[in-house]
């Protein structure tokens, strides 16, 4: 029988792309990985030729260039994460600026070894300037919303960063189960959590309550996922799988309702919900 085409990303499919953004790739930043390869080949040829000092210099230059390229790509990722948020702290390590320094140092070392020190310094300086112009600086200042206190925004940004880290742990643990449905469901939960983070970012005045809730829910979800992932394969096939999936469903629903409650600013509802979830997690054998 013919079947109408439809995958999990089709409208009405199991996996929603709502709220996700495509990752923007900087082609030149990626090309830097490839462009560094001739230096590696030169270094290996020096190894083959038995010239140890030349080999050490070329390989050191290659290491500088590759670490620089990696830092640049990481910096671009961090910049995108910064841009996606309403309130955010600047990245702790200015990766793009460091990348400019490392790439320039790599060019300097390689040129100094092959051509001359003066040429190396000049090419290194050109590289540094072009790198900073071409790839830009890291975001250096925190951003927030006007009208909301600076300290408040910063606390919210910090709390959300911590919560994001817990979401990453959940996805990692769920991924290690090697069960497609579980991974998909954990992914959906992570998406709901992110939607909630955006809500908190837009109004960080509710941080205290949101924090209590994020702590109970997210840490509960993480503990459950880690525990489930830790079960042996045989146990996972049994009733534990159904129970775990039911817990995920509940959590997912709670995230959605809590987001609405946070938006509606109804304190009592939220506190009751948190109590209910605490009970639920206790029953599952997880201390909240």
């Amino acid at each position, binding site marked *: 029988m013919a079947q109408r085409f439809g995958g999990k990303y089709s409208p009405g499919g199991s996996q929603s792309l709502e709220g996700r953004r495509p990752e*923007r790739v*900087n082609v*030149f*930043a990626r*090309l*830097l990985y490839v*462009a*560094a*390869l*001739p*230096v*590696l*080949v*030169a*270094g290996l*040829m*020096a190894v083959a*030729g038995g010239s140890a000092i*030349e080999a050490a210099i*070329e390989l050191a*230059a290659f290491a500088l*260039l590759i670490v620089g390229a990696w830092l640049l790509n990481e910096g671009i990722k961090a910049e995108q994460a910064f841009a996606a948020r309403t309130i955010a702290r600047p990245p702790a390590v200015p990766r793009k600026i460091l990348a400019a320094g490392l*790439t320039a140092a*790599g*060019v300097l070392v*390689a*040129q100094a*070894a*092959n*051509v001359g020190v003066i040429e190396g310094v000049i*090419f290194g300086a*050109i*590289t540094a*300037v*072009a*790198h900073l*112009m*071409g*790839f*830009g600086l890291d975001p250096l200042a925190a951003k927030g919303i006007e009208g909301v206190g600076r300290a408040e925004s910063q606390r919210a940004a910090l709390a959300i960063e911590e919560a994001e880290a817990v979401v990453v742990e959940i996805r990692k643990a769920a991924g290690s189960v090697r069960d497609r449905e579980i991974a998909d469901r954990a992914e959906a939960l992570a998406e709901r959590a992110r939607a909630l983070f955006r809500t908190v970012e837009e109004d960080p005045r509710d941080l205290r309550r949101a924090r209590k809730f994020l702590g109970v829910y997210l840490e509960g979800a993480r503990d459950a996922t880690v525990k489930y992932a830790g079960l042996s394969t045989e146990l996972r096939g049994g009733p534990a799988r159904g129970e775990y999936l039911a817990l995920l469903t509940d959590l997912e629903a709670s995230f959605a309702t809590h987001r609405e409650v946070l938006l509606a600013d109804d304190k009592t509802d939220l506190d009751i919900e948190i109590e209910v979830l605490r009970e639920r997690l206790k029953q599952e054998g997880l201390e909240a």
Partner: protein
Amino acid sequence: MVLGAGQTGEGLMLRGFAAFVVVAIVLFTGLAAFGAAL
């Protein structure tokens, strides 16, 4: 590439060119080292 907020076409071209220069310098530095090793 897509223009972001506050970006102009000229600015983007300049940035793209500068990024290209970095890649070219790294590549030709490597090629020169490779040539010297031959």
